[in-house]
């Protein structure tokens, strides 16, 4: 797999010399999508390729920066009432959709109604549930959303059902993007948005081609076009990158060492603190796992540092809680569970299991996860915890975990928006047991009330303090085996300028990214 760039260099020069002109090099080529998007309709954006493309074509009232900041999008500013319930969004004026239709407040209401409308079959209404009446509308109980109104063309007033200070962060999610008021039946394939790019063509399972929206309010993208190739096999994406046919590559987790140890390849690498928690959910309602001491024993029984080093070349930041260290609320001074088999055995004895316990650990068939599971199994055996690994295709494994049929479920959680709430609430709040994301079926009244209070707290410093407190409880109660926060590794071609790997998957819209024609290879098409 290691064909070096050095070997390639003379060929690149030849290709350039023979190619003549640089007009074919202004296309940016992404290789990150590994399956065909579900649709290009924001209301259907439930998967990563869809969300990314929707982010190019549409705008929300807010948007993410690559670093994970939340900045104004179609709303230029907003204010909240003192009780935190009423939000007034002032909309950007003079914005038009790519078909020329002017952007007005009414479209915001209609777009969000579509997301919640069960007949649209989107399936992801929760980012809008904080709006008063949204959930009832989604359930078909009412015919309009009470909390939404547009007093004039450039103002949207949102009434929430309870104070929720981080609401603007949720509005940067692709599903909350704004579409025109009436959309044709084939909108999913012929989208019209206000975003920085417009769709040129979508070849299913092949690529999506975008051209700049020359009237984009934030200034049109600087490149001539953007091609999002759909490459199913990670090794193929690597080969494409090495041939110079794609510009940006997400390094497959199994190949990190190959890249970091190669001097030539190393120069192309860049990374970002990713908001991805890798963990094994412990079902706190099953057998011995009801006892926190047993759950702590599971955490003491593994050497995460060595697993991190040997399996993912130290790309993981060991987790001591569920809040990523880059987010406010994380307690970076807390040292996590240290590998200590004596301690693990002792905790098991105290819990009444001197002869150890037998557990099933479920995992998807992702080769890396299978290896992690096998390593955990080997470690835990040292403390008398006998693990049987159950491998299932990922949808089936997730379904079993949601039904509460798994003891341990090895998985990851990737943030939808950069806030500690996005970890504390879905993963461990009892309101989200099962399908909501809490597959630990963790229920702790104190934890619940702190997280609920944090969601309602309008003062940022106080909110962060509550986050920290909740995280401490979660850490102590150990409803999961805390593994690590994975930091994504990217390779970017030397002729690409201005690409910054995004912290949130839809946080990079390529508007300021350019290619320097002189050093890029000639490409087909």
């Amino acid at each position, binding site marked *: 797999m290691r064909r070096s760039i050095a070997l390639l260099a003379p060929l690149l020069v030849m290709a350039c010399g023979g190619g003549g002109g640089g007009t074919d090099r202004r296309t940016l080529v992404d290789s990150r999508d590994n399956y065909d998007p579900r649709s290009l309709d924001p209301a259907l954006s439930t998967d990563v390729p869809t969300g990314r493309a929707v982010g190019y074509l549409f705008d929300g009232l807010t948007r993410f920066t690559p670093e994970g900041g939340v900045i104004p999008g179609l709303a230029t500013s907003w204010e909240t009432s003192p009780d935190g319930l009423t939000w007034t969004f002032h909309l950007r004026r003079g914005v038009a959709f790519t078909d020329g239709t002017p952007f007005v407040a009414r479209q915001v209401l209609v777009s969000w109604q579509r997301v919640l409308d069960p007949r649209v079959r989107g399936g*992801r209404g929760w980012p809008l549930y904080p709006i008063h009446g949204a959930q009832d509308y989604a359930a078909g109980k009412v015919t309009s959303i009470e909390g939404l109104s547009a007093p004039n063309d450039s103002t949207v007033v949102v009434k929430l059902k309870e104070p929720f200070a981080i609401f603007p962060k949720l509005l940067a999610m692709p599903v909350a993007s704004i579409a025109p008021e009436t959309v044709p039946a084939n909108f999913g394939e012929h989208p019209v948005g206000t975003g920085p790019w417009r769709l040129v063509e979508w070849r299913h399972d092949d690529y999506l081609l975008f051209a700049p929206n020359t009237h984009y309010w934030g200034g049109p993208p600087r490149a001539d076009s953007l091609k999002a190739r759909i490459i199913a096999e990670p090794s193929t994406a690597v080969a494409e990158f090495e041939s110079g046919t794609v510009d940006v590559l997400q390094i497959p987790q199994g190949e990190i060492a190959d890249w970091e140890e190669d001097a030539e390849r190393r120069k192309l690498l860049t990374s970002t603190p990713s908001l991805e928690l890798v963990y094994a959910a412990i079902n706190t309602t099953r057998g011995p796992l009801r006892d926190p001491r047993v759950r702590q024993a599971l955490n003491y029984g593994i050497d995460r540092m060595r697993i991190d080093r040997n399996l993912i070349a130290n790309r993981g930041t060991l987790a001591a809680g569920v809040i990523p260290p880059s987010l406010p609320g994380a307690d970076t001074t807390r040292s996590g569970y240290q590998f200590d088999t004596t301690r693990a055995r002792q905790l098991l004895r105290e819990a009444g299991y001197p002869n150890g316990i037998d557990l099933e650990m479920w995992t998807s068939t992702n080769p890396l996860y299978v290896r992690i599971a096998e390593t955990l199994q080997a470690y835990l055996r040292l403390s008398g915890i006998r693990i049987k690994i159950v491998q299932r295709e990922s949808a089936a494994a997730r379904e079993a975990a949601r039904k509460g049929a798994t003891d341990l479920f090895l998985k990851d959680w990737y943030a939808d928006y950069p806030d500690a709430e996005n970890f504390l609430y879905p993963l461990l709040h009892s309101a989200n047991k099962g399908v909501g994301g809490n597959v630990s079926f963790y229920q702790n009244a104190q934890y619940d009330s702190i997280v609920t209070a944090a969601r309602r707290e309008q003062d940022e410093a106080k909110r962060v303090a509550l986050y920290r407190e909740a995280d401490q409880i979660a850490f102590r109660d150990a409803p999961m085996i805390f593994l690590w926060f994975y930091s994504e590794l990217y390779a970017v071609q030397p002729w690409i300028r201005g690409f910054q790997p995004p912290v949130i998957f839809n946080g990079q819209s390529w508007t300021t990214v350019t290619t320097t024609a002189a050093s890029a290879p000639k490409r087909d098409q």
Partner: protein
Amino acid sequence: MGAFILRRLLLAIPTLLGVLVIAFLLLYVAPGDPVMAMVGERADEQTIARLRAELRLDDPLPVQFGHYVAGIAKGDLGRSYITNRPILRDILERFPKTLQLAGAAMLFATICGVTLGVLSARSPGGLIDRFGLALAYLGISFPVYWVGLLLILLFAVTLHWLPPSGFGGFRYLILPALALGMRSVAFLARMTRSAMLDALGADYVRTARAKGLRERVVVARHALRNALIPIITVLGLDFGAYLTGSILTETIFSWPGLGRYVVNAIARRDLPAIQGSVLFLSAVFVLVNLLTDLAYAKADPRVTYA
């Protein structure tokens, strides 16, 4: 002949109906709920219940099946649960690409395999024969996946002659066709060799030689023609395997064919898309078998389907 084709086509109906029932039932007993796959990591019971109702997943199984069959009778494979697009259109968009890849692989396999087989048979135990045998073993033992990646590394990454993956002109077709056809080259070469050896030892070949015909004519016209039946059988069987077995090749080479569509559909538990693809591929399979039978008659005048 016409009556034979008609009879075979009529027989295909119960076959496809059987496929339909089995595919339908298997998918409903297999674990994996389409709604669960659809909503992603974070959802709520209410949304899931509404979606189940929208997709009519709560109807009794016979009712759901009735609905499905009624749609198919009208030539409608339904819409995808996930993308909302008509399934038949999705399949028809992708199938020609799979066909193109399968066709190219088969052409490659036939030309190389039959040539190698004939040459091997002409001097059994000779250099070409032994080379062919070695190649056959290699071709059968190497997994497509590995061969595919190796081809990409050599011809795209290192030599820069061909694009690593994707869909486009002839240049994009070469590597996946080689990877997909490789196995069959080996198979066909061995099959042709043994069929040719039989034929070359037959009385009519001796007669042909005794008539003073040139060796080339003897081999090509008399022996090869008679060796064709087993070769056609292998080709027919292989072609079906190409269509369904191109999944790996399409994945490695980012080829936007039906194989990847099916993989996606399975991963997302898109039941109507899976059923539609299975039904479609079964129909193609039946058709290919029929064409194979017709080709027998063309190759061997003794075979008639009156």
